[in-house]
């Protein structure tokens, strides 16, 4: 069992938790992920590490409530326990030698982008961050990004905060104005990453994407997380989760992501009803 040391609601759909998991905290690096189960007989879900405190032995996770498991997790409070927590899995994001990087985060993906920005910033790299949200009330981690970036641009889809529009808008403007980067690192919804890649491709700027497909064991055993990268089958859990964005087959990844959509929607509704009943 793994204790929830702290819990903070970042916005109505996104929660941050610190979990006591000393073995994971000792090793976890930006870009890696963990797998957790909330309770016995629960499903295993992968979540990318949003930071860790090696002294305290805690790992920070930030998750969006999108289904039954994240709903159940969100009902746990600080001091309570979750069943399983294993990691760190996957390879850390490669940052060595980078001098100037653009970080593009979307929605809850910003939670994963932040430790990468922080790591780059700490090693003296120039970090331009673009973070995007649907609207102002979904905005998270603005101050943290400000502290870790040379320059920060906040975008909202509806214009309720920051600049109005998609994250690709300022990225395209910068690139067209002649700005160059050693690398663009993007983390967010598949469709956003697909368009970030479409934006950087004409400029030939290396673009790394962080993939988060359906997986079970996270150690290369089930093959459920497979992706086509450069025409070759790769397993996100052991070969990734970071890949060269120019090589990833996003359309296939998006289709595979919907494999259990009906089941997931049904399970989510059931879980919500269950919690509602408990409240009544």
């Amino acid at each position, binding site marked *: 069992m793994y204790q929830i040391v702290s819990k903070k609601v970042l916005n109505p759909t996104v929660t941050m938790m610190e979990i006591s998991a000393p073995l994971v905290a000792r090793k976890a690096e930006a870009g890696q992920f963990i797998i957790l189960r909330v309770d016995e*007989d629960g499903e295993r879900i992968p979540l990318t590490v949003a930071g860790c405190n090696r002294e305290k032995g805690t790992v920070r996770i930030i998750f969006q409530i999108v289904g039954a498991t994240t709903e159940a997790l969100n009902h746990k409070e600080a001091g309570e326990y979750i069943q399983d927590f294993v990691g760190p899995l996957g390879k850390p994001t490669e940052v060595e030698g980078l001098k100037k990087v653009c970080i593009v985060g979307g929605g809850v993906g910003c939670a994963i982008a932040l430790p990468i920005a922080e790591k780059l910033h700490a090693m003296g790299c120039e970090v331009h961050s673009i973070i995007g949200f649907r609207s102002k009330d979904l905005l998270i981690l603005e101050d943290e990004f400000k502290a870790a970036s040379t320059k920060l641009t906040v975008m909202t889809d509806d214009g309720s905060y920051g600049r109005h529009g998609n994250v690709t808008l300022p990225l395209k403007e910068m690139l067209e104005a002649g700005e160059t980067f050693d690398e663009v690192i993007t983390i967010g919804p598949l469709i956003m990453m697909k368009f970030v890649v479409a934006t950087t491709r004409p400029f030939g700027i290396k673009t790394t994407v962080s993939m988060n497909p359906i997986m*079970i064991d996270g150690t290369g055993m089930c093959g459920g997380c497979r992706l086509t990268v450069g025409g070759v089958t790769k397993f996100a859990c*052991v070969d990734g989760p970071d890949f060269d964005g120019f090589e990833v087959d996003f359309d296939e990844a998006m289709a595979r992501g919907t494999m259990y959509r009906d089941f997931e929607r049904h399970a989510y509704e059931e879980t919500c009803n269950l919690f509602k009943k408990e409240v009544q």
Partner: protein
Amino acid sequence: MAANMSLTKNPMPSQEPEVRAHNFSEVALGYDEATALDEAARCLGCKAMPCVSGCPVNIHIPEFIAKVKECDFEGAYQVIAQASSLPAVCGRVCPQESQCEALCVRGKKGDPVGIGRLERFVADWHNDHATEAPVRPAPNGHKVAVVGSGPSGLTCAGDLAKKGYAVTVFEALHLAGGVLVYGIPEFRLPKAIVQKEVDTLKALGVDIQTNVVVGKTITIDELFEDGYEAVFVGSGAGLPNFMGIPGESLKGVYSANEFLTRSNLMKAYKDDSATPIWKGGKVVVVGGGNVAMDAARTALRLGAEVSIVYRRSMEELPARREEVEHAQEEGIEFKLLNNPVRILGYQNPDDPRDPKNGCVTAVECIRMELGEPDEKGRRRPVEIPGSEFVMDTDVVIIAIGTSPNPLIKNTTAGLEVNRRGGIIVQEETGATSKPGVYAGGDAVTGAATVILAMGAGKTAAKAIDEALSK
């Protein structure tokens, strides 16, 4: 008692095929006492004991059967337990027909003695009747780490614990048992039995740490720093192989590992499970091994109409004969001498957001014929040009084997592996190229059987004991 000279083995009582095809309860029900005694009486107790040399863990077979004849079932169990850490498991999943029973003298004329069925009877009798906890041996002051809690790891851990070693088993998943819990289905090996065997090891003092991925959470070098004096690697053959044909990433295509893990470990076969799995419709399983049979029979029980596509003929099918017969009885169709060339999917030309887009609709296969024997002596399948045909299906399960998981190799300096990624060991000891590190099971051999993995765990335990007690 006079020897029973019947030429036929007592048949295994089983659930009727039409009944078991719709449930996940165990297929084989086991001998009762009278049947066990009758079968035991078929053993001639030969002095040469050819059966023992066919057993990868050298169970003293005539000796345990003699105890059965005397109705001393606990005594029989103790004989088996001296050699095997997992008797109830082996009695169920061992390929006895090609091991101990293949060498039984009675098999020269008629059926061999039902050694596996007797082993299962004895182990189940013990599990139902034994009340005494296993005696915990006095600690000998040495610490050993075991990586993986599958058959090789559990065997190695059990043998060392019995000698007084402080053994810690590190398991990547949330539950101990390895392939016994994620791979082999409930109807062939009930999980309660695996749990009982694991509990027996815990009672012997074995510490099992789940949720630890060696190579990620902790490395082998760090285990030595933490005071472990030897490490046994039984991490299994992780990575599922795919065919490399178009369409393998369509929705509805599973590796057998994923399909079985969803159903077994994650309990998707239960109605209230939190884990989704595609049920019903038509399912095509590609491959002819035991894992293919397990996947096919699982899909059948989940409500599907199931075909097995295999590129050679019935004679070369690598699965145990009994599993193939069970599958046939349950109504699984064998489409032999066929090989998939691509998997076809749905795409709505008018609606790119149609949820059915990217779902499997069919498998295109080509007919095969058998040509010259290959290096292993199996006749090589050759395509018959122009014989392609299409089979409609909703799900494709690929069960064509696995490759050793690279996590440990990639994080352990000095650990040599072969061309296929299997860890290289000295056969007599299980010792690897790295001092203090031993390995066995599928991590060494690639996908093989439970009992061979157990044999390797046993060999390594003996070698570790010899090295550390010097």
